[in-house]
């Protein structure tokens, strides 16, 4: 079988490493679509696993220099400097307030915009993997895989209804508890 593991945020690296090994040991061809980010620390994959690294974390909506200067660096810098003197308490309070009212909403907005770019990118890459690997078994191995799956699994199953879908690669009947 072609077993495709989908881990768009790589939140369960250890499980993916263990379960892909189990699948290989059972004689399957194993493919993985996973986030790598800028570092690949924590992965301990069998070299036989065919991996498509997403690198979606490298996609970031840039922040305008003027926005960074006027909303963060300048006001927070001034408040930090004030905080070194006798106005330490009021300055810290003002900085917290500024962050809550100005900085954090901007951060959240930027995060949403970034995610709006990453999501279709992830989806495209997963669809590429589906096309190229023709999986018989899909393993949605983390919550974000389930979230992403709403945009491709219904269509995929309509085309290939016999595809097995699970949330982990567990031994099926006949496996042993040592695994």
């Amino acid at each position, binding site marked *: 079988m072609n077993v495709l593991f989908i881990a768009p945020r790589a939140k*369960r690296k250890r499980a993916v490493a*263990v379960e892909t090994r189990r699948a290989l040991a059972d004689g399957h061809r194993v493919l993985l679509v996973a986030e790598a980010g800028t570092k690949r620390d924590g992965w301990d994959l069998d070299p036989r696993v065919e991996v498509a690294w997403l690198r979606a974390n490298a996609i970031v909506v840039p922040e305008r220099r003027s926005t960074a200067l006027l909303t963060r660096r300048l006001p927070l810098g001034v408040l930090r400097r004030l905080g070194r003197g006798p106005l330490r308490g009021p300055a810290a309070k003002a900085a917290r307030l500024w962050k809550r009212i100005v900085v954090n909403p901007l951060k959240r907005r930027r995060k949403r915009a970034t995610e709006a770019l990453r999501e279709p990118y992830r989806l495209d890459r997963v669809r590429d993997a589906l096309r190229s690997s023709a999986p018989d078994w899909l393993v949605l191995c983390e*919550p974000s895989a389930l979230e992403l799956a709403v945009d491709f699994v219904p269509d995929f199953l309509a085309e290939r209804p016999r595809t097995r*879908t699970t*949330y982990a690669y*567990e031994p*099926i009947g006949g496996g042993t508890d040592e695994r």
Partner: protein
Amino acid sequence: MSAGRRVAVVTPWYPDAQRPYRGSFVQAMVEAVAPGLDGVDVYHVDGWAVTGEPERLRRVRDLHRRLLQRAFAPAPAVAGAVLYRVPAAVERNPDHALHSRRYAEWLGVALGGRPIEADVIHAHVPMLGGYAALEHCLPGTEVYMTEHSSFLQEVLDQPDARALYDEILHRTAGLFVVGEPLHRLIGEVFPHHAGKLSYIANPIDFSSRRERRPAELRRWLSVAGLIERKRIDHLLRAFADCRAGDPALTLTIAGEGELRRPLEALSVELGVDDAVDFVGAVDPGEIPSLMADHDLLVHTSRHETFGVVVVEALAAGTPVLVSRSGGSDQVLSGIEDDAGQLVDVVDDPAAFADAYWSLRDRYPHKVDLEAAREHVRAKYSYEAVAAHHHRIWFGDRP
């Protein structure tokens, strides 16, 4: 009810490939009780945090409803038990009652509307496993529960969650706790259910032990998560204090957590990094040999629901120097001096250091590890805990 002895266990915590240690005490319970039963089915209902955005959430829930039934399949587990994994998609939300209802909902989806076929159900964590079990048991099936949650106070601070907990207590056949702190908390909040509340132990493996008792108490071992509640910083300061008096002391710190880096930095700052070894998470199966390779278990936790690591140390024949964290006091009740030494939970590391020197002064002649081991074995061995569960579930029925 039939006279069968088929038991179902419903639990939110059970070891998996990602977290092989989480809920290892539930796995140990299953392993202990399985002999003598007709069968054990374990339903591991695992929380999966998903988006709270309404439209996206609706689509996720629709798809999950469809896929969960396709994925629901038995897998082999310990001692011949059968394991079913049930990912429970729960929108990110701090409402504990919502989590409870979602766990129950997804277990129902996985079961395809059928009830759990079992003569008795034992659930872990009433708000998560317990409520799900109650919602899907056969009419007349008794549902027992064990509470382990160290965060129970936070749950009961929410009015909806407290009301649901009250309902769960009303419907359960019996609620068990593993330590005095949880017994006190539940008894205080729900005095009208006090009659249903009693103790049960987590089973500990007593099958192996060290060959000889430690000659000197120089090689310290801590087995604890590197989180604030465990006060490993306090331990490091006490260790540094003691090492100033005996440079041959070493400390092995087993466990992982968010504080690892600051604690490593603290060991450098205290000048003891050459004697402190952070070994990370340890497989539960390796605990006995780890205990046997050290002279003294040290534990500085502020609060514990049960002193599992203390029992493991005594099972391995290793003395203990532990804080009065609630669970540890209860485990060592009556055998404090035989097992080692208890220390009050105070902020001064010197108190822990003083306790160490006090223990070292009277070790080994005024410490009776064999008596302590036998005492805890009678309560916490697999055989003892299995017999206790079987008595609860079936009474004197053979």
